[in-house]
């Protein structure tokens, strides 16, 4: 049994909108083991990024709050510790890679200084030692001329190079958990392939746990061992990756997988999910997916199903009333 690195329990995050609070993340629980890549999938607005920002406590307290839940890393609750202690955790225990590498680096600072800044903050070493460490991490992420890169500014690098620098920065203090929020979405496919390869290598070498947030099911299939699917701020299904693609249980997961065009499948039309994601402020009453679900029943519109474990160990979960009844396609909704 591998040990749990991160455990998120009943996380609930709310945002202020027009003087009322809307829930962006609702009772989300999952865990990541060491050396494991967990995929967090969903469409835009489903709360994947908010979940990761909540774990890192990077949300502005002015208009948002984490109202419930625990985030346990090494059995310590990150939501209970003070700001100063949290700064020690960021970078050291959990590091994050963001979607837009160009916008996540400071444009007025040379790469070298940005990298050593993080290293000096977390380690009591000399500037020279930090600089050589920065050189090493850049080399490790496959940057051809680290010395040149250390001296350049972010705008002088391409998108793929910036993302490598971001990964180097994240890995510089050897964190136990890496959160990658859409790390390759802004990149071209050939560069994406390079970055994915690099992340896989890091995981293998250092036994880092990775939370990979993405909307691209192709990336998930190639990288992750387990997947959590989110819809409208809730987890709707969790499964090992192979089972998820072979026998998705939740109608949303099924629709999502079907609607991705697959290379080499010779398809000419795609099954699609009708309608669009509900607004956070005006959520449907029962199951949040019911208005778009072709199997929706009476009970789906009245009562929200709970997230139930579908095996003994609790690693497979699904939130759907259909688990208890035979499904019948409803044509007119």
């Amino acid at each position, binding site marked *: 049994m591998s040990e749990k690195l991160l455990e998120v329990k009943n996380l609930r995050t709310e945002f202020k909108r027009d003087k009322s609070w809307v829930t962006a993340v609702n009772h989300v629980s999952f865990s990541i083991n060491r050396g494991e890549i967990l995929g967090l999938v969903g469409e835009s607005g489903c709360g994947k990024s908010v979940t990761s920002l909540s774990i890192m406590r990077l949300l502005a307290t002015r208009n948002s709050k984490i109202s419930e839940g625990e985030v346990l890393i090494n059995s310590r609750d990150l939501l209970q510790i003070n700001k100063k202690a949290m700064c020690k955790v960021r970078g050291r225990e959990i590091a994050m890679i963001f979607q837009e590498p160009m916008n996540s680096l400071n444009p007025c600072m040379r790469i070298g200084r940005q990298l050593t800044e993080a290293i000096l903050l977390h380690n009591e070493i000399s500037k020279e030692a930090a600089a050589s460490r920065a050189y090493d991490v850049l080399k490790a992420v496959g940057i051809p001329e680290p010395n040149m890169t250390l001296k350049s500014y972010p705008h002088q690098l391409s998108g793929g190079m910036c993302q490598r620098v971001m990964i180097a920065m994240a890995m510089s203090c050897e964190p136990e958990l890496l959160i990658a929020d859409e790390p390759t979405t802004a990149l071209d*496919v050939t560069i994406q392939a390079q970055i994915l390869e690099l992340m896989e290598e890091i995981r293998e070498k250092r036994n880092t746990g990775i939370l990979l947030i993405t*909307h691209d099911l192709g990336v998930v*299939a190639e990288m992750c061992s387990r997947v959590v699917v989110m819809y409208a701020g809730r987890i709707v299904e969790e499964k090992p990756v192979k089972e998820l693609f072979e026998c998705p249980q939740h109608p949303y997961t099924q629709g999502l997988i079907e609607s991705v065009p697959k*290379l080499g*499948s010779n398809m000419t039309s795609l099954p699609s999910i009708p309608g669009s994601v509900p607004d956070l402020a005006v959520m449907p009453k029962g199951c949040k997916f019911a208005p778009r679900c072709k199997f929706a029943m009476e009970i789906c519109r009245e009562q929200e199903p709970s997230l139930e474990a579908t095996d003994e160990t609790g690693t497979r979960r699904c939130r759907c009333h259909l688990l208890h009844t035979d499904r019948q396609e409803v044509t007119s909704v």
Partner: protein
Amino acid sequence: MSEALVSVKNVVKTFPVNKGLFAKKKFVHAVNDVSFEIMPGETFSLVGESGCGKSTTGRLIDHLLTPDAGEIWFEGKEISRISQNEMRPLRSDIQMIFQDPYGSLNPRMKVQDLIGEPLLIHTNMSGGERLKKVHGLLEVVGLSPAHGERYPHEFSGGQRQRIGIARALTVNPKLIIADEPVSALDVSIQAQVLNLLQKLQKDYDLTYLFISHDLSVVEMISDRIAVMYLGTIVETAPKRELYSNPRHPYTRALLSAVPVPDPGRKKKRIILEGDLPSTTNLPDGCLFHTRCPYCTDKCRKERPMARTIGEGHIVKCHYNNKM
């Protein structure tokens, strides 16, 4: 052989970049000697990574840009250097759908005015007739006539893209240039819009020039595909041929880099080293030689010519038969 609707011949487009008053003038070589033909009723796709010149090519055909050299023929007429006035009647034949459904709709106009605007310019319809046509179009793209009274911000991304499509359809175009029409959308919505585009093609006899970076989307929608790299087309082939028998090393790498949503299928990715070379300073010889795993001395010195190696299959590589 039927006549091509659009034919692009050896088109070149460069943009000047000024670096200081006394600096040597530099140019971005956006499109480099691009030639292709689009047959009526087909979907022709341009694929490639960012900065490869696919959007510039689309804009050249739509006369939003003028080429530095080369010719663009539309229905037997050379259109690349005609004036705006001469172009105006042709604009109703060539319409464009843009990538960003948020940025391409005027936020201060009602949807029905947005969709009806082309009719104001190209026809003498009365207000009532226009509105009737707009309502019809809204239904065609899967919205309701009541949506016409609303403003763009009240719609989701997928709905906005539908509005963009309705606007392109108003003047009964022959050619629609769709520049990354689904890349800003979520997968479930992307499927809806792709299906709609295919249905409309059948119903209205449309020809599409589809510009995209997503090879799986392109495979679904196209008849013929051209792969672009650094402003030039490296391979053109019918869909099935391109995906089953890619001949250019760049096409192969590109195809192998696409993540496939099937965890059982573990394939070997061809990882290309390095980044795209800068377009201000193009490499000598074959444009792809800096990243090509099979690069030889000949590739470094000599630029390969386009060669036809099968029916409709054109490749720009010295070694198209030996790999």
